[in-house]
């Protein structure tokens, strides 16, 4: 049983998250500002922190810095700011993920599960040998068994989707244009069939991403192509 600390100055939001997460079988600790959160992590064995950024007394960013001095547990930031700069700031001070308010509870749970699995079971940074497949973040591709695991759970892909994912994971960090993808996966020239590639990638994102509109791994580089993130910077 994992212990999760939920911290937000808005008590209603804390209660709501507590209800959702307890329903998933997690043990919930609560805090209402940054200082309380740090104290709670010091006193209890906490496996994951869900924390708001805008809080009185001690805000999320300050608390984040303090937390990283004492522990390495995953932290997901909750933020009402959807500015890119806020996200980047949060990730730079050591957060593992972020969710923007108003959030979808299902998405929050998915992200919590993903982070916990990564932290508790994978231990991070394990790289599968290229002949067997590829691993990027929480996505595992096994080339022999033609299986895909996202956060440890198997996801069923069509053969085309599998090929596209394999191509992108092989060339992680590189932008591939729809034409190139078509050429390598289907063989031959695209001749106006580029949107077929886009349709498949959309489906692929729906299968492997928690929020397909804000993908963590399979990113759309608008007006150029698609790319797979190169794994974690940490």
């Amino acid at each position, binding site marked *: 049983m994992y212990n999760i600390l939920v911290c937000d100055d808005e008590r209603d*939001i804390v209660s709501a998250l507590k209800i959702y997460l307890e329903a998933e079988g997690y043990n919930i600790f609560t805090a209402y500002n940054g200082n309380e959160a740090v104290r709670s992590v010091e006193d209890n064995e906490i496996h994951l922190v869900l924390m708001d950024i805008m809080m009185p007394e001690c805000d999320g960013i300050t608390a984040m810095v303090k937390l990283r001095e004492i522990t390495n547990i995953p932290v997901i930031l909750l933020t009402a700011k959807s500015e890119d700069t806020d996200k980047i700031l949060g990730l730079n001070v050591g957060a593992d993920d972020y969710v923007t308010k108003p959030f979808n509870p299902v998405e929050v749970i998915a992200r919590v599960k993903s982070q916990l699995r990564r932290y508790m079971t994978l231990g991070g940074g394990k790289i599968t040998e290229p002949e067997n497949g590829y691993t990027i973040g929480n996505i595992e591709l096994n080339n022999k068994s033609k299986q895909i695991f996202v956060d440890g759970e198997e996801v069923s892909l069509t053969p085309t989707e599998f090929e596209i994912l394999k191509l992108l994971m092989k060339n992680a960090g590189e932008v591939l244009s729809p034409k190139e993808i078509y050429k390598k996966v289907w063989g031959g020239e695209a001749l106006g069939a580029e949107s077929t590639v886009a349709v498949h990638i959309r489906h692929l994102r729906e299968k492997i991403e928690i929020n397909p509109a804000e993908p963590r791994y399979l990113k759309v580089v608008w007006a150029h192509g698609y790319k797979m993130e190169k794994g974690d910077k940490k």
Partner: protein
Amino acid sequence: MKKLTENLGAKITAIILSFIAFAAVCVSAAAVIFLLDSDGYTKTRDEIKTDIMENRIGNGHIYNILEVYESGQSVENYCDMQGIYYTIEDYKNGGVIENNYTGQSFLVQKRLLNMAVYEERAYEDENGDMHYTTVERSPVSVTVYIPREALSGRGQLLLNVVDTAYTVRYAVLVILGVSVVMLIVLLCYLYAAAGHRKGGVVALNHLDKVPFDLLTAAVGGIAIISVLLINEAAFASDLFLIVVLAVVLSLDYFVALGYTLTLATRLKTRTLLKNNIIYKLWSVAAKGFKRLFSWLKYLFRSIPTVAKTAVITSAVGLFQFIIIAIFTYYPVERTLLFLLFTVADVAVIISLAILLKRIKEGGEKIAAGDLEHKIDTKYMYGDFKDFADSLNNINEGLSVAINERMKSERFKTELITNVSHDIKTPLTSIINYVDLIKKEEPENENIKEYIDVLDRQSSRLKKLIEDLMEASKASTGNLAVNLSVCEAGVLLSQTVGEFDGRLNSAGLIPVVNIPEKPVKIMADGRHLWRVFDNLMNNICKYSQVGTRVYLDLLESDGKAQITFKNISKYELNITGEELTERFVRGDKSRNTEGSGLGLSIARSLTELQNGSLEIDIDGDLFKVTLNFDTVKEEVKNGQGKLREQSC
């Protein structure tokens, strides 16, 4: 009339006729002048003849007779040989001395009175030398009567001409009048028709393309040669003169006609001035001067103020000094004193130039937007200091005004951001608890229905707040825009792929038209995707089920045009312009989902990327057109930049 001016045959006929008329004018005018000169319209035929002959013949015969008479030879023999008659009378006493005139018919009578007669006598003196002396005899009067037969061939011809001219003396007047009128009419026609070609155009022929000044010089040369030729021919025989006159005048007529015709064409086509060697030379020279001048100007500008002043004032001072040293007789001390003054002047002017330069540079910095810049007034005095101070004051005023303005802009966007942030927190609770209630089993069936309303409306509120923030940022330009080379075709196919599912479920059939050749534009991929996303969302929401959606990308003349066309589900009683205003939707009832900000955001974002968005509504056809400039050259480092722009 139009037809006639374009008819080549009519023109040639007119030229020939005009030449005939010209010849008639020449001949008849010559005749009329001749007749007027010899009083042909007031005297009788014989009087004219006598007058003419009297003028022509002169007193040659009389002097010859007198000479013969003095020498003592036979006057009668001489006159018989000449075919003329004579009478010699004693001037003082009267009475005929000798004659052979006895009333024969004659044409002209010439008489001279009181003619002195001298006789040369020779005598021998006492030494045996011969001496000659002239003795004056009593004077005589000599009369000669010249009959028609005695005239030379030329005189006979002249008489015939006079006869003919006199006979037609009234006819030539008529001929002159008629031929003059005819010539004028024909010339008017020719000038009017000059240059006109079939089809109503005025065109230039080969002659019209010759430079006009060259042509004028040639015509002038021909005129001079003509005059010289006629002058020469005037000393030759009459027939030769007439032939030369006829040939030269005919040729001259055609030369003059050609010259005036091309003048007319040039005036019509306004090429008279331009098609000149002098004009061309001048324009070339003017261009050269202009370039030289602008080069000098450029040179002058690129030299710094102080150096410029130093060079000019030193040059002027040196020049003055040299003039004074060379051309005046001042003693050496005074010349040196003058040199000292000049050096002092130059020093003062240069120091002023340094101050001016400092103010000028300060002004330029302020103009370029550096509002923090202060002009250093440390070593300034008088007017310069005042000027620099007022420039500094302007600067302060400006930066205060701009700061105020920026503050209020920032305040506005911050207000919207903060308010929507504050709304988001309670909204999160509402959404979450609505979701939690949905999971409970309600006792009353109505509650389920009410919860659905709450769920729907809270999602709508969420969307509205997000759109409001985005619209506020996009319309104030408070948004980072990283323009890079983007492929519009790739984005369009990506968009179609993203919306594939939604289009299917809305019962819409996409028809995509993307050219094979990549269309490259400068845009920010993420913002452009937001534009496409908004437009496609609208299409999915408001299109009639079962219709086609046309998405086209076109490139022409350096412009990329992307069009989105769909058939509206609802009647659109609104203009395209109104639709991009904030909070305006196609249906005025505002019952459907959406914030009414989508098109406004799309337009603001497009304009932030230097594109344009236009909406056309034609019945139920809803058409959005995006225009961007295409990128011509391949940007090499474009690919490297793109990586950071994934979303």
